[in-house]
């Protein structure tokens, strides 16, 4: 049994919910896919980039794109180290995620792209408009975490192999994508759904799953809490429904992930006491969060906003934001997150 998020994921362009304009952009792309440029889909987490990407592929290649398999591939680095990597692929596309390959992303991507580029689909359908299937699509998830090296390497490759390979890159933020790549892509912005759309989608899923709703109110609260992240909203709906025997009332408490409440507690602690002892206690909170695989930048963001909410002093808010922006940068540049998170906590204590 799959999660509701996956079970009710739209699989074709016509069933995509929210944002008709964006859907029409994708439809216009799929209508003449022959000379498709490379694509870059960007927008906040949970706004449905992957869903739209797959729906687009479906409209170009047909249902076959959902017949996916996972292969273990071996790559050899120049220093002769072997690495194994799982590659998800269908007959028409393959997917890669940079964080699976760390600093070797350039080698892996180049090797895969070269391989794909040297082959060409021979069974492309003559029926549609001819050559739509001549190329294979390579989907790069989290393209914003590609190393600079890998991005630089993509520049010529994207031009050289443009006949047989089309890239579809997905990312939350385009700021860390170098501009020579952006100028090679059709950029598609994917906004998060507004709250009323989220409510509609939740309503649909709830009725399909036979969840009894006292009123829409509870869905509105979920939509509000999920901040435009549809995945989060659906996960919340599912866990709340399962915990309350499929009956949701206006008064049903919202279930938030544990780590969020840990961060709120951490924020309160920071605000209450300014001492080394407290800093040591905060450290164990941070270690705990990191041990549960909560990304450091998410911790920093949530913590910043929790501190902003708790504080009533405008000066303090400004100082916290400024500190946060500095430590955010250190997080991206450094590679020991705990140092920078702790540094932030210490500075935040002083500015309260």
């Amino acid at each position, binding site marked *: 049994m799959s999660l509701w998020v996956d079970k009710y994921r739209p699989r074709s362009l016509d069933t995509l919910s929210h944002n008709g304009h964006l859907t029409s952009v994708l439809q216009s792309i799929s209508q003449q896919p022959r*000379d498709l440029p490379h694509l870059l889909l960007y927008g906040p987490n949970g706004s449905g980039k992957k869903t739209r990407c797959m729906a687009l592929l479906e409209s170009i290649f047909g249902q076959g794109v959902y017949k996916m398999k996972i*292969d273990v591939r071996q790559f050899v680095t120049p220093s002769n180290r072997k690495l194994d990597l799982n590659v998800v692929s269908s007959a028409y596309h393959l997917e890669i995620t940079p964080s699976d390959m760390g600093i070797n992303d350039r080698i892996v991507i180049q090797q895969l792209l070269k391989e794909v580029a040297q082959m060409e689909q021979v069974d492309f359908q003559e029926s549609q408009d001819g050559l739509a299937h001549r190329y294979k699509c390579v989907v790069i998830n989290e393209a914003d975490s590609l190393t600079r090296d890998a991005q630089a390497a993509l520049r010529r490759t994207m031009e050289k192999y*443009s006949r047989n390979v089309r890239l579809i890159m997905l990312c939350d933020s385009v*700021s860390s994508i170098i501009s020579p790549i952006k100028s090679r892509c059709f950029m598609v912005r994917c906004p998060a759904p507004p709250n009323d759309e989220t409510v509609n989608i939740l309503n649909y899923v709830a009725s399909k799953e036979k969840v009894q709703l006292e009123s829409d109110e509870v869905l509105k609260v979920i939509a509000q809490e999920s901040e435009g992240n549809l995945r989060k909203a659906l996960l919340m709906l599912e866990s709340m429904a399962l915990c309350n025997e499929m009956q949701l009332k206006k008064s049903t408490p919202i279930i938030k992930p544990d780590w969020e409440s840990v961060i709120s507690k951490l924020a309160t602690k920071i605000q209450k006491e300014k001492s080394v002892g407290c800093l040591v206690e905060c450290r164990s909170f941070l270690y705990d969060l990191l041990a549960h695989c909560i990304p450091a930048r998410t911790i920093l963001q949530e913590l910043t906003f929790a501190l902003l909410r708790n504080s009533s002093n405008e000066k303090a808010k400004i100082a916290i*934001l400024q500190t946060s922006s500095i430590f955010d940068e250190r997080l991206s540049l450094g590679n020991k997150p705990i140092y920078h998170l702790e540094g932030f906590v210490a500075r935040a204590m002083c500015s309260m």
Partner: protein
Amino acid sequence: MFEGFGANKRRKVNIEEEPEHTKPWVEKYRPKKLDDVSAQDHTISVLKKTLTSANLPHMLFYGPPGTGKTSTIFALTRELYGPELSKTRVLELNASDERGIAIVREKVKNFARLTVSKPSKEALEKYPCPPYKIIILDEADSMTADAQSALRRTMENHSNVTRFCLICNYVTRIIDPLASRCSKFRFKSLDESNAIGRLKEISQLENVPHEEGALQRILEISNGDMRRAITLLQSAAKRLGFGELDKITSQEVEELAGLVPTHILQEMLNKVSQGNVNEIIEYVNEFVKNGWSAVSVVNQLHDYYITSNDYGTDFKNKISLLLFDADAKLANGTNEHLQLLNLLVQISQVPT
């Protein structure tokens, strides 16, 4: 055993023979002859002289992305050797290739050592076919300084049979001893009067109707990057025939380029000038859900503040510093939400 992706359905192809209509427009309209390269008159006329004298120096092409550097060198080699002979006389190494010291040396050595194949009679009639080979190092600014200094020796050792062409965006990233061995060619960022002709030509060939001023808008947004301009034109053309759209409009172009619409930018500026921190926080929370790129917001704010007549120099200086700081942080792959919020809050605190 694993045999490549869908090996049964794919066959090897020769990448050279590419039907034009399956390529994205940037590739389809890549200049094929030196004469097709627009807006680089000086460079092109000098290069054409070398065609007749058949004595080519080592070359260094530098300039911003999308100004025709890669296209020019390939056009030049084609005019020197013709399409057949180019295959054996030209070696391209770019950032996607392994370019460590040892590997470059090895590759260059092997390539230089191969005896030059005799040009056929037809080729000799049509092309100058000078008796040396050309090695193109594209995107050379991504090579380390060490690899570059190793290249110095290699260049000297093989200078009787090879000519090098280095291509880069920033000439300062090429070490001096290397740069001083080359004739330098600067590629200017394309200005409007030059580039508009090319865009008009493409839109005619592809039959895309456009509103008065839409092509100009494309060029303004692309900022002298012809590749971006052509990609944008193609993106906009894909949208034709959907909804009301029967010709390319400036508005559609701005939307596709990911610019924040003026009225929303104005709304943001109003919030900032009112200076209420809580309201700015609220506003940014909603704003980021739309997925606009923070870099684009920073650029648009920059254009607004710097060109506005309502502010004094001192204010503009302070704002500029804040904008540059935010831009630098964003380029390091930081959290867009935090950075944008911090930027706006900081701006709101600058006294006018």
